[in-house]
């Protein structure tokens, strides 16, 4: 639900990137209509009531057994990005059932670059030679229960300067990023772009460098210590402490290595939950649709007679 609402929020970004958006589930068309009405969903919600498409894709969640009514029939959640020819260019299937790629991550993948949003929390450092911006990308940088955001460290290097990826010769400093947050913030390994080789022919050494604008991405997400579907949000923000270490050089000289510490504070907000008794009174954001009626119909679908 949170995911679909965030996709709707990001719909202008999908449209600007020329991407049509579809979402498939085993819900009945009338349940999807009620949800679309409640949440203002404008893109296509597609109804696979017998999970035939989900099965044909091979993504039926088979950990859930047929007797686990009404849960049997759902997929492992994920997203395919296809190009103009219909060929899959990327797919996003986080392993944990609560994690989802942010909508912006899907759009970025199609564009081949990260579009920083005006609403995304950020902090700046560096100087005129090396400008550094750390921002939390996706869903306005808001932490909820499970959506994966990206802490992006963007280096903007003056013409002629470069910084280093691993490995570096002894005595030089490769670029590194570390992120610390409150308990409940999961920080994954940084994802770096491909480096360019820089051959120092006189020394017989090849360096691995970045120049221009360089984005290093650290996926982050909140577990139930920060946002829990069974209780209200305790603390409405979280501060990410970002430590950036790098050494910038041009062809002639190297600057001394630098360590910069940036702080980015992001909102922590309630998660969207369905309007069913088990979840509706825990201080999270409850959808306005009549979920119990549709849940009742969903259960009946699986019962004999």
């Amino acid at each position, binding site marked *: 639900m949170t995911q679909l609402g965030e996709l709707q929020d990001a719909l202008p970004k999908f449209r600007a990137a020329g991407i049509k958006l579809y979402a498939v589930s085993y819900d009945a068309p009338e349940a999807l209509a009620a949800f679309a009405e409640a949440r203002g969903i404008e893109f296509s919600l597609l109804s696979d009531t017998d999970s035939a498409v989900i099965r044909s894709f091979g993504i039926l969640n088979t950990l859930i057994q047929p007797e686990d009514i009404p849960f049997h029939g759902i997929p492992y959640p994920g997203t395919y990005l296809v190009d103009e020819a219909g060929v899959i260019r990327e797919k996003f299937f986080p392993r944990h059932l609560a994690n989802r790629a942010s909508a912006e991550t899907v759009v970025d993948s*199609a564009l081949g670059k990260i579009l920083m949003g005006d609403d995304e929390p950020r902090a700046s450092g560096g100087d005129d030679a090396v400008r550094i911006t750390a921002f939390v990308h996706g869903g306005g940088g808001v932490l909820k229960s499970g959506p994966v955001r990206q802490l992006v460290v963007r280096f903007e290097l003056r013409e002629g300067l470069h910084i280093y990826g691993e490995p570096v010769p002894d005595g030089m400093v490769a670029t590194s990023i570390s992120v610390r947050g409150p308990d409940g913030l999961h920080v994954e390994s940084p994802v770096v772009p491909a480096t360019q080789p820089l051959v120092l022919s006189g020394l017989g050494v090849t360096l691995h460098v970045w120049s221009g604008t360089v984005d290093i991405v650290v996926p982050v997400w909140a577990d139930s210590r920060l946002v829990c579907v069974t209780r209200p949000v305790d603390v409405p923000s979280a501060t990410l402490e970002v430590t950036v270490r790098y050494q910038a050089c041009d062809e002639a000289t190297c600057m001394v290595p630098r360590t910069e510490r940036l702080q980015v504070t992001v909102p922590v907000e309630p998660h969207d939950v369905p309007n069913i008794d088990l979840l509706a009174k825990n201080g999270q954001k409850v959808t306005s649709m009549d979920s119990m009626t549709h849940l009742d119909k969903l259960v009946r679908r699986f019962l004999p007679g």
Partner: protein
Amino acid sequence: MSQDEYTDEFGFVAPLKTTSNQRRIPDEGFPTGPAIGERLPDFTLVDQRGRSVDLHADRADAKAAVVFFRSAVW
């Protein structure tokens, strides 16, 4: 982290025990369907307006994101 029967190994809490099948977390390498580089298989499904949608015909040579989600009901 305090572990109990409602808190899973990733730190997520839900009002169903972690031993229930619907909270099981797949192993690494779980199936994620057609591979990158393959054509997304054809399918036709009804949308929230009751309209039949043939995915590849509907996207009409545009790029598309196709999201498989669990449920809008629960």
